[in-house]
Protein backbone atom coordinates (compact mmCIF):
# COMPACT_ATOMS: atom_id res chain seq x y z
CA UNK A 1 0.00 0.00 0.00
CA UNK A 2 1.06 3.56 -0.65
CA UNK A 3 -0.20 6.29 1.63
CA UNK A 4 0.11 10.04 1.98
CA UNK A 5 0.33 11.05 5.64
CA UNK A 6 -0.43 14.56 6.88
CA UNK A 7 1.06 14.58 10.36
CA UNK A 8 1.04 17.33 12.99
CA UNK A 9 4.64 18.22 13.92
CA UNK A 10 5.31 20.41 16.94
CA UNK A 11 8.73 20.77 18.53
CA UNK A 12 7.51 21.36 22.08
CA UNK A 13 4.68 22.85 24.10
CA UNK A 14 5.75 26.44 23.45
CA UNK A 15 6.41 26.24 19.72
CA UNK A 16 3.88 26.63 16.96
CA UNK A 17 3.16 23.38 15.18
CA UNK A 18 2.29 22.63 11.56
CA UNK A 19 1.25 19.77 9.33
CA UNK A 20 3.99 17.97 7.40
CA UNK A 21 3.24 15.62 4.53
CA UNK A 22 5.01 12.26 4.19
CA UNK A 23 4.67 9.73 1.41
CA UNK A 24 4.79 6.21 2.84
CA UNK A 25 5.05 3.37 0.32
CA UNK A 26 6.07 0.46 2.54
CA UNK A 27 2.72 -0.24 4.11
CA UNK A 28 1.23 -3.72 4.45
CA UNK A 29 -2.52 -4.04 5.04
CA UNK A 30 -1.71 -6.38 7.95
CA UNK A 31 0.31 -3.76 9.83
CA UNK A 32 -1.24 -2.10 12.83
CA UNK A 33 -1.46 1.69 12.58
CA UNK A 34 1.37 2.07 15.08
CA UNK A 35 3.59 -0.39 13.16
CA UNK A 36 2.98 1.70 10.06
CA UNK A 37 4.26 4.74 12.00
CA UNK A 38 7.23 2.68 13.30
CA UNK A 39 8.27 1.95 9.71
CA UNK A 40 7.84 5.61 8.80
CA UNK A 41 10.03 6.60 11.76
CA UNK A 42 12.72 4.09 10.84
CA UNK A 43 12.93 5.73 7.45
CA UNK A 44 13.09 9.19 9.03
CA UNK A 45 15.86 8.13 11.41
CA UNK A 46 17.89 6.67 8.52
CA UNK A 47 17.52 9.96 6.69
CA UNK A 48 18.70 11.78 9.84
CA UNK A 49 15.34 13.44 10.43
CA UNK A 50 13.49 13.73 13.73
CA UNK A 51 11.08 10.78 14.07
CA UNK A 52 7.35 11.41 14.67
CA UNK A 53 6.64 11.22 18.40
CA UNK A 54 3.50 9.38 19.44
CA UNK A 55 2.26 7.67 22.61
CA UNK A 56 2.09 3.88 22.82
CA UNK A 57 2.72 1.19 25.38
CA UNK A 58 1.08 -2.25 25.60
CA UNK A 59 -0.03 -2.47 21.95
CA UNK A 60 -2.75 -4.91 22.89
CA UNK A 61 -5.60 -2.48 23.50
CA UNK A 62 -5.63 -2.48 27.30
CA UNK A 63 -3.37 0.32 28.51
CA UNK A 64 -5.02 3.39 26.99
CA UNK A 65 -1.71 5.01 26.09
CA UNK A 66 -2.05 5.27 22.30
CA UNK A 67 -4.04 8.24 21.10
CA UNK A 68 -4.04 9.89 17.62
CA UNK A 69 -6.92 11.71 15.94
CA UNK A 70 -7.02 9.94 12.57
CA UNK A 71 -9.03 11.34 9.64
CA UNK A 72 -11.31 13.31 11.93
CA UNK A 73 -11.96 10.60 14.53
CA UNK A 74 -10.17 9.51 17.71
CA UNK A 75 -8.40 6.17 17.18
CA UNK A 76 -9.44 6.29 13.51
CA UNK A 77 -12.43 4.77 11.70
CA UNK A 78 -12.99 1.79 14.05
CA UNK A 79 -14.16 1.88 17.66
CA UNK A 80 -10.85 0.48 18.95
CA UNK A 81 -7.56 1.76 20.30
CA UNK A 82 -5.09 2.87 17.63
CA UNK A 83 -2.83 -0.15 18.28
CA UNK A 84 -5.74 -2.45 17.38
CA UNK A 85 -6.45 -0.53 14.15
CA UNK A 86 -4.96 -2.15 11.06
CA UNK A 87 -4.06 -0.66 7.71
CA UNK A 88 -6.67 -2.84 5.98
CA UNK A 89 -9.16 -0.29 7.30
CA UNK A 90 -7.69 2.21 4.82
CA UNK A 91 -7.62 2.32 1.03
CA UNK A 92 -4.46 2.16 -1.07
CA UNK A 93 -3.40 5.68 -2.06
CA UNK A 94 -5.46 7.30 0.71
CA UNK A 95 -4.41 10.54 2.41
CA UNK A 96 -4.51 10.16 6.20
CA UNK A 97 -4.51 13.19 8.49
CA UNK A 98 -3.07 12.49 11.94
CA UNK A 99 -3.56 15.03 14.74
CA UNK A 100 -2.99 14.98 18.48
CA UNK A 101 -5.94 15.04 20.94
CA UNK A 102 -7.09 18.66 21.07
CA UNK A 103 -8.17 20.02 24.46
CA UNK A 104 -7.12 22.88 26.69
CA UNK A 105 -6.65 20.29 29.47
CA UNK A 106 -4.43 18.08 27.24
CA UNK A 107 -1.50 20.30 26.20
CA UNK A 108 0.66 19.00 23.35
CA UNK A 109 4.05 17.83 24.61
CA UNK A 110 5.58 17.08 21.23
CA UNK A 111 4.14 16.15 17.82
CA UNK A 112 1.27 13.76 18.57
CA UNK A 113 2.04 13.31 22.26
CA UNK A 114 -0.30 15.10 24.69
CA UNK A 115 -0.10 15.42 28.47
CA UNK A 116 -3.08 13.55 29.93
CA UNK A 117 -2.08 13.97 33.57
CA UNK A 118 -5.29 15.99 34.06
CA UNK A 119 -6.99 12.56 34.18
CA UNK A 120 -4.55 11.43 36.88
CA UNK A 121 -5.33 14.49 38.99
CA UNK A 122 -9.09 13.85 38.66
CA UNK A 123 -8.51 10.26 39.72
CA UNK A 124 -6.37 11.37 42.66
CA UNK A 125 -9.08 13.80 43.76
CA UNK A 126 -11.50 11.00 44.60
CA UNK A 127 -11.12 7.87 42.50
CA UNK A 128 -10.09 5.55 45.33
CA UNK A 129 -11.55 3.49 48.18
CA UNK A 130 -10.39 3.15 51.76
CA UNK A 131 -9.19 -0.29 52.82
CA UNK A 132 -8.26 -1.59 56.23
CA UNK A 133 -4.75 -2.70 56.93
CA UNK A 134 -4.22 -6.19 58.28
CA UNK A 135 -5.20 -9.50 56.84
CA UNK A 136 -6.58 -9.87 53.33
CA UNK A 137 -10.40 -9.94 53.47
CA UNK A 138 -12.14 -13.07 52.19
CA UNK A 139 -13.19 -12.92 48.57
CA UNK A 140 -16.95 -12.46 48.05
CA UNK A 141 -17.42 -11.68 51.77
CA UNK A 142 -19.70 -8.80 50.80
CA UNK A 143 -22.60 -9.96 48.61
CA UNK A 144 -22.98 -7.93 45.39
CA UNK A 145 -25.79 -8.70 42.93
CA UNK A 146 -24.39 -10.05 39.66
CA UNK A 147 -26.10 -7.37 37.53
CA UNK A 148 -24.67 -4.60 39.70
CA UNK A 149 -21.22 -6.15 39.64
CA UNK A 150 -21.42 -6.36 35.84
CA UNK A 151 -22.51 -2.74 35.57
CA UNK A 152 -19.61 -1.64 37.79
CA UNK A 153 -17.20 -3.80 35.80
CA UNK A 154 -18.41 -2.24 32.52
CA UNK A 155 -17.64 1.20 33.97
CA UNK A 156 -14.30 0.02 35.33
CA UNK A 157 -13.32 -1.10 31.82
CA UNK A 158 -12.38 2.54 31.12
CA UNK A 159 -8.66 2.72 30.26
CA UNK A 160 -8.45 6.51 30.52
CA UNK A 161 -7.26 6.96 26.93
CA UNK A 162 -9.05 10.31 26.50
CA UNK A 163 -10.87 9.44 23.27
CA UNK A 164 -14.07 10.77 24.86
CA UNK A 165 -12.44 14.18 25.37
CA UNK A 166 -10.97 14.09 21.87
CA UNK A 167 -14.31 13.17 20.29
CA UNK A 168 -16.43 15.68 22.23
CA UNK A 169 -17.04 19.01 20.54
CA UNK A 170 -16.72 20.58 24.01
CA UNK A 171 -13.59 18.60 25.00
CA UNK A 172 -15.64 17.37 27.95
CA UNK A 173 -14.31 14.64 30.23
CA UNK A 174 -17.73 13.57 31.52
CA UNK A 175 -17.59 10.03 30.14
CA UNK A 176 -14.23 9.34 31.81
CA UNK A 177 -15.19 10.93 35.15
CA UNK A 178 -18.63 9.31 35.15
CA UNK A 179 -17.10 5.87 34.54
CA UNK A 180 -14.75 6.35 37.49
CA UNK A 181 -17.55 7.67 39.72
CA UNK A 182 -19.88 4.84 38.67
CA UNK A 183 -17.52 1.94 39.28
CA UNK A 184 -17.29 2.88 42.96
CA UNK A 185 -20.79 4.28 43.50
CA UNK A 186 -22.30 0.96 42.40
CA UNK A 187 -20.30 -1.22 44.79
CA UNK A 188 -20.52 -1.50 48.60
CA UNK A 189 -16.78 -0.91 48.90
CA UNK A 190 -17.21 2.56 47.40
CA UNK A 191 -19.87 3.79 49.83
CA UNK A 192 -17.80 5.52 52.57
CA UNK A 193 -16.41 8.15 50.13
CA UNK A 194 -19.39 8.06 47.77
CA UNK A 195 -20.64 11.64 48.17
CA UNK A 196 -17.29 13.30 48.70
CA UNK A 197 -15.85 11.45 45.72
CA UNK A 198 -18.22 12.81 43.10
CA UNK A 199 -17.94 16.36 44.49
CA UNK A 200 -14.15 16.30 44.45
CA UNK A 201 -13.80 14.61 41.07
CA UNK A 202 -16.25 16.99 39.38
CA UNK A 203 -14.53 19.98 41.01
CA UNK A 204 -11.15 18.75 39.73
CA UNK A 205 -12.61 18.10 36.27
CA UNK A 206 -13.80 21.73 36.14
CA UNK A 207 -10.49 22.95 37.52
CA UNK A 208 -8.65 21.26 34.65
CA UNK A 209 -10.73 23.18 32.10
CA UNK A 210 -12.75 20.40 30.47
CA UNK A 211 -16.01 21.47 28.81
CA UNK A 212 -19.63 20.74 29.72
CA UNK A 213 -21.74 17.87 28.36
CA UNK A 214 -24.18 18.48 25.47
CA UNK A 215 -25.29 14.81 25.39
CA UNK A 216 -24.22 14.42 21.75
CA UNK A 217 -23.15 10.79 22.35
CA UNK A 218 -19.95 11.42 20.37
CA UNK A 219 -17.91 10.02 23.29
CA UNK A 220 -19.92 6.81 23.54
CA UNK A 221 -19.56 6.29 19.79
CA UNK A 222 -15.75 6.45 19.97
CA UNK A 223 -14.99 4.80 23.32
CA UNK A 224 -12.79 1.72 22.68
CA UNK A 225 -14.18 0.15 25.87
CA UNK A 226 -17.85 0.88 25.05
CA UNK A 227 -18.49 2.99 28.15
CA UNK A 228 -22.11 4.12 28.01
CA UNK A 229 -23.50 7.60 28.66
CA UNK A 230 -25.86 6.07 31.24
CA UNK A 231 -22.78 6.58 33.43
CA UNK A 232 -22.99 10.34 32.81
CA UNK A 233 -26.63 10.36 33.95
CA UNK A 234 -25.56 8.37 37.02
CA UNK A 235 -22.74 10.83 37.77
CA UNK A 236 -25.24 13.71 37.49
CA UNK A 237 -27.58 11.97 39.94
CA UNK A 238 -24.68 11.29 42.30
CA UNK A 239 -23.56 14.89 42.04
CA UNK A 240 -26.98 16.42 42.75
CA UNK A 241 -27.60 14.04 45.62
CA UNK A 242 -24.21 14.86 47.08
CA UNK A 243 -24.56 18.63 46.67
CA UNK A 244 -28.06 18.69 48.16
CA UNK A 245 -27.60 16.22 51.00
CA UNK A 246 -23.92 15.79 51.90
CA UNK A 247 -22.98 16.41 55.51
CA UNK A 248 -21.41 19.75 56.33
CA UNK A 249 -18.92 18.84 59.01
CA UNK A 250 -19.02 21.75 61.44
CA UNK A 251 -17.91 20.12 64.70
CA UNK A 252 -14.87 18.02 65.28
CA UNK A 253 -15.31 14.35 66.05
CA UNK A 254 -13.54 14.82 69.37
CA UNK A 255 -10.18 13.79 68.03
CA UNK A 256 -8.45 17.03 68.99
Amino acid at each position, binding site marked *: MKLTLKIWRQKNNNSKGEFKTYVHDHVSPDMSFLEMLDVLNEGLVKKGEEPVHFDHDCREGICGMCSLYINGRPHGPLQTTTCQLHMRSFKDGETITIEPWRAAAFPVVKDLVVDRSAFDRIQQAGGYVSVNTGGVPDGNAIPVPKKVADEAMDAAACIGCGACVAACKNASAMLFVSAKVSQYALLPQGQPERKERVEKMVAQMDEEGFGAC*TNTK*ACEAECPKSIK*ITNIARMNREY*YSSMFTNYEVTVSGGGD
Partner: protein
Amino acid sequence: MRSIFGFLYKYFQTRPTYMNWFSQLITSTIGKKLIMALTGLFLISFLIIHCTINAMIFLNDGGVTFSHWGHFMGTNPVIRTLEIGLVAGFLIHIFQGLLLIKKNRDSRPVRYQVEAPSPKSTWYSRSMGLLGTLLLLFLIMHTAHFWIPNRSNQFATGEELNLYQMMLNIFADPLIVILYVLGCISLAWHLLHGFWSAFQTLGLNHQRYNSIIHFVGTAFAIVVPLIFALMPIAIYLNWVH
Protein backbone atom coordinates in the same frame (compact mmCIF):
# COMPACT_ATOMS: atom_id res chain seq x y z
CA MET B 1 -21.17 54.29 44.21
CA ARG B 2 -17.80 53.37 45.67
CA SER B 3 -19.36 52.38 48.94
CA ILE B 4 -21.82 50.05 47.19
CA PHE B 5 -19.00 48.22 45.42
CA GLY B 6 -17.06 48.20 48.66
CA PHE B 7 -20.00 46.65 50.44
CA LEU B 8 -20.53 44.03 47.74
CA TYR B 9 -16.84 43.20 47.72
CA LYS B 10 -16.84 42.78 51.49
CA TYR B 11 -20.04 40.75 51.34
CA PHE B 12 -18.66 38.27 48.83
CA GLN B 13 -15.39 38.08 50.76
CA THR B 14 -17.07 37.31 54.07
CA ARG B 15 -20.46 35.95 53.03
CA PRO B 16 -21.83 33.19 55.21
CA THR B 17 -20.68 29.74 54.17
CA TYR B 18 -24.08 28.06 54.36
CA MET B 19 -24.85 28.82 50.72
CA ASN B 20 -21.42 27.95 49.34
CA TRP B 21 -22.59 24.52 48.26
CA PHE B 22 -25.32 26.11 46.17
CA SER B 23 -23.08 28.53 44.30
CA GLN B 24 -20.61 25.67 43.83
CA LEU B 25 -23.41 23.53 42.41
CA ILE B 26 -24.75 26.05 39.91
CA THR B 27 -21.33 27.19 38.69
CA SER B 28 -20.01 23.66 38.06
CA THR B 29 -20.21 22.31 34.51
CA ILE B 30 -22.93 19.89 35.66
CA GLY B 31 -24.85 22.66 37.48
CA LYS B 32 -24.76 24.91 34.41
CA LYS B 33 -26.35 22.13 32.42
CA LEU B 34 -28.86 21.54 35.23
CA ILE B 35 -30.00 25.15 34.79
CA MET B 36 -30.27 24.61 31.01
CA ALA B 37 -32.33 21.45 31.57
CA LEU B 38 -34.71 22.97 34.13
CA THR B 39 -35.31 26.19 32.19
CA GLY B 40 -35.59 24.15 28.98
CA LEU B 41 -38.32 21.92 30.43
CA PHE B 42 -40.07 25.01 31.79
CA LEU B 43 -40.03 26.59 28.31
CA ILE B 44 -41.36 23.30 26.89
CA SER B 45 -44.31 23.49 29.29
CA PHE B 46 -44.91 27.05 28.07
CA LEU B 47 -44.93 25.83 24.45
CA ILE B 48 -47.78 23.43 25.25
CA ILE B 49 -50.00 26.28 26.48
CA HIS B 50 -48.93 28.72 23.77
CA CYS B 51 -49.57 26.12 21.07
CA THR B 52 -52.93 25.02 22.47
CA ILE B 53 -54.35 28.54 22.73
CA ASN B 54 -53.06 29.62 19.33
CA ALA B 55 -54.48 26.46 17.73
CA MET B 56 -57.92 27.91 18.56
CA ILE B 57 -57.60 29.92 15.33
CA PHE B 58 -58.19 26.65 13.43
CA LEU B 59 -61.76 26.67 14.76
CA ASN B 60 -62.22 29.36 12.10
CA ASP B 61 -64.76 31.29 14.14
CA GLY B 62 -63.32 34.70 13.32
CA GLY B 63 -60.99 34.51 16.30
CA VAL B 64 -63.73 34.48 18.97
CA THR B 65 -62.39 31.49 20.97
CA PHE B 66 -58.77 32.53 20.41
CA SER B 67 -59.44 36.07 21.63
CA HIS B 68 -61.33 34.80 24.64
CA TRP B 69 -58.34 32.77 25.83
CA GLY B 70 -55.90 35.46 24.70
CA HIS B 71 -57.76 37.91 26.90
CA PHE B 72 -57.59 35.48 29.82
CA MET B 73 -53.83 35.01 29.39
CA GLY B 74 -53.26 38.73 29.02
CA THR B 75 -55.26 39.84 32.06
CA ASN B 76 -55.38 37.02 34.64
CA PRO B 77 -53.17 38.12 37.57
CA VAL B 78 -51.82 34.60 38.18
CA ILE B 79 -50.83 34.20 34.53
CA ARG B 80 -49.32 37.68 34.45
CA THR B 81 -47.19 36.82 37.48
CA LEU B 82 -46.09 33.55 35.89
CA GLU B 83 -45.17 35.58 32.81
CA ILE B 84 -42.39 37.24 34.79
CA GLY B 85 -41.04 33.76 35.48
CA LEU B 86 -41.35 32.95 31.79
CA VAL B 87 -39.32 35.99 30.75
CA ALA B 88 -36.73 35.06 33.37
CA GLY B 89 -36.75 31.47 32.10
CA PHE B 90 -36.05 32.65 28.56
CA LEU B 91 -33.29 35.04 29.65
CA ILE B 92 -31.57 32.46 31.88
CA HIS B 93 -31.77 29.76 29.19
CA ILE B 94 -30.35 32.16 26.58
CA PHE B 95 -27.54 33.64 28.69
CA GLN B 96 -26.51 30.34 30.26
CA GLY B 97 -26.51 28.84 26.75
CA LEU B 98 -24.26 31.60 25.44
CA LEU B 99 -21.93 31.24 28.44
CA LEU B 100 -21.74 27.48 27.86
CA ILE B 101 -20.88 27.99 24.19
CA LYS B 102 -18.03 30.27 25.30
CA LYS B 103 -16.81 27.85 27.97
CA ASN B 104 -16.97 24.86 25.65
CA ARG B 105 -15.06 26.68 22.91
CA ASP B 106 -12.38 27.67 25.42
CA SER B 107 -12.03 24.00 26.33
CA ARG B 108 -10.64 23.36 22.85
CA PRO B 109 -8.56 26.41 21.85
CA VAL B 110 -6.93 24.66 18.86
CA ARG B 111 -9.48 23.13 16.50
CA TYR B 112 -9.01 19.94 14.50
CA GLN B 113 -8.03 20.17 10.84
CA VAL B 114 -10.30 17.28 9.86
CA GLU B 115 -13.51 16.40 11.70
CA ALA B 116 -15.65 13.41 10.71
CA PRO B 117 -17.91 12.64 13.68
CA SER B 118 -19.45 9.20 14.07
CA PRO B 119 -22.92 8.87 12.55
CA LYS B 120 -24.09 7.69 16.00
CA SER B 121 -23.84 11.32 17.11
CA THR B 122 -26.55 13.42 15.42
CA TRP B 123 -25.73 16.73 13.74
CA TYR B 124 -28.52 18.56 15.56
CA SER B 125 -27.25 17.43 18.98
CA ARG B 126 -23.92 19.04 18.11
CA SER B 127 -25.64 22.20 16.78
CA MET B 128 -27.77 23.21 19.77
CA GLY B 129 -25.91 26.54 20.01
CA LEU B 130 -26.51 27.33 16.34
CA LEU B 131 -30.18 26.24 16.49
CA GLY B 132 -30.61 28.22 19.71
CA THR B 133 -29.13 31.33 18.08
CA LEU B 134 -31.54 30.98 15.14
CA LEU B 135 -34.38 30.62 17.66
CA LEU B 136 -33.18 33.74 19.48
CA LEU B 137 -33.32 35.74 16.23
CA PHE B 138 -36.78 34.30 15.59
CA LEU B 139 -37.85 35.16 19.14
CA ILE B 140 -36.77 38.79 18.70
CA MET B 141 -38.82 39.08 15.49
CA HIS B 142 -41.78 37.21 16.98
CA THR B 143 -42.01 39.26 20.20
CA ALA B 144 -41.58 42.45 18.14
CA HIS B 145 -44.63 41.37 16.11
CA PHE B 146 -47.01 40.49 18.93
CA TRP B 147 -45.96 40.42 22.57
CA ILE B 148 -44.04 43.72 22.84
CA PRO B 149 -46.62 45.91 21.03
CA ASN B 150 -49.49 44.26 22.94
CA ARG B 151 -47.92 44.60 26.38
CA SER B 152 -46.70 48.16 25.75
CA ASN B 153 -50.20 49.13 24.60
CA GLN B 154 -51.67 47.53 27.72
CA PHE B 155 -49.17 49.45 29.81
CA ALA B 156 -49.89 52.76 28.08
CA THR B 157 -53.68 52.60 27.63
CA GLY B 158 -54.85 49.54 29.58
CA GLU B 159 -56.35 48.17 26.37
CA GLU B 160 -55.30 44.91 24.67
CA LEU B 161 -54.63 44.89 20.94
CA ASN B 162 -56.65 42.70 18.61
CA LEU B 163 -54.07 39.94 18.26
CA TYR B 164 -56.21 37.95 15.85
CA GLN B 165 -56.43 40.86 13.39
CA MET B 166 -52.67 41.44 13.83
CA MET B 167 -52.00 37.82 12.86
CA LEU B 168 -54.11 38.19 9.72
CA ASN B 169 -52.21 41.36 8.77
CA ILE B 170 -48.69 40.15 9.58
CA PHE B 171 -49.05 36.75 7.91
CA ALA B 172 -50.23 38.35 4.67
CA ASP B 173 -46.54 38.91 3.89
CA PRO B 174 -45.04 35.73 2.32
CA LEU B 175 -41.53 36.62 3.56
CA ILE B 176 -42.72 36.70 7.17
CA VAL B 177 -44.52 33.39 6.67
CA ILE B 178 -41.29 31.81 5.38
CA LEU B 179 -39.30 33.22 8.33
CA TYR B 180 -41.86 31.81 10.78
CA VAL B 181 -41.76 28.39 9.14
CA LEU B 182 -37.93 28.44 9.30
CA GLY B 183 -38.21 29.37 12.99
CA CYS B 184 -40.48 26.37 13.55
CA ILE B 185 -38.03 24.08 11.76
CA SER B 186 -35.20 25.30 14.03
CA LEU B 187 -37.48 24.71 17.00
CA ALA B 188 -38.19 21.15 15.86
CA TRP B 189 -34.47 20.24 15.67
CA HIS B 190 -33.75 22.05 18.93
CA LEU B 191 -36.51 20.10 20.70
CA LEU B 192 -35.61 16.80 19.07
CA HIS B 193 -32.35 16.87 21.01
CA GLY B 194 -33.30 19.20 23.86
CA PHE B 195 -36.26 17.24 25.21
CA TRP B 196 -34.35 13.99 25.71
CA SER B 197 -31.15 15.80 26.65
CA ALA B 198 -32.86 17.61 29.55
CA PHE B 199 -33.82 14.26 31.08
CA GLN B 200 -30.30 12.89 30.61
CA THR B 201 -28.82 15.97 32.31
CA LEU B 202 -31.24 15.59 35.22
CA GLY B 203 -29.88 12.05 35.57
CA LEU B 204 -33.20 10.53 34.47
CA ASN B 205 -31.80 7.81 32.26
CA HIS B 206 -33.21 4.39 33.00
CA GLN B 207 -33.87 1.43 30.70
CA ARG B 208 -37.48 1.26 31.86
CA TYR B 209 -38.33 4.83 30.92
CA ASN B 210 -35.87 5.71 28.12
CA SER B 211 -38.14 4.52 25.32
CA ILE B 212 -41.11 6.55 26.59
CA ILE B 213 -38.94 9.67 27.04
CA HIS B 214 -37.62 9.28 23.50
CA PHE B 215 -41.07 8.67 22.07
CA VAL B 216 -42.71 11.63 23.83
CA GLY B 217 -39.72 13.85 22.97
CA THR B 218 -39.80 12.94 19.28
CA ALA B 219 -43.58 13.30 19.06
CA PHE B 220 -43.43 16.67 20.84
CA ALA B 221 -40.61 17.92 18.60
CA ILE B 222 -42.67 17.08 15.49
CA VAL B 223 -46.25 17.90 16.54
CA VAL B 224 -45.77 21.24 18.32
CA PRO B 225 -43.58 22.96 15.66
CA LEU B 226 -45.86 21.54 12.95
CA ILE B 227 -48.97 23.10 14.52
CA PHE B 228 -47.09 26.37 14.97
CA ALA B 229 -45.88 26.34 11.35
CA LEU B 230 -49.40 25.67 10.08
CA MET B 231 -50.68 28.92 11.66
CA PRO B 232 -48.94 31.45 9.37
CA ILE B 233 -49.39 29.08 6.40
CA ALA B 234 -53.12 28.68 7.04
CA ILE B 235 -53.60 32.43 7.39
CA TYR B 236 -51.54 33.20 4.30
CA LEU B 237 -53.48 30.69 2.22
CA ASN B 238 -56.73 32.08 3.62
CA TRP B 239 -57.78 28.76 5.21
CA VAL B 240 -58.28 30.79 8.36
CA HIS B 241 -59.80 34.24 7.97
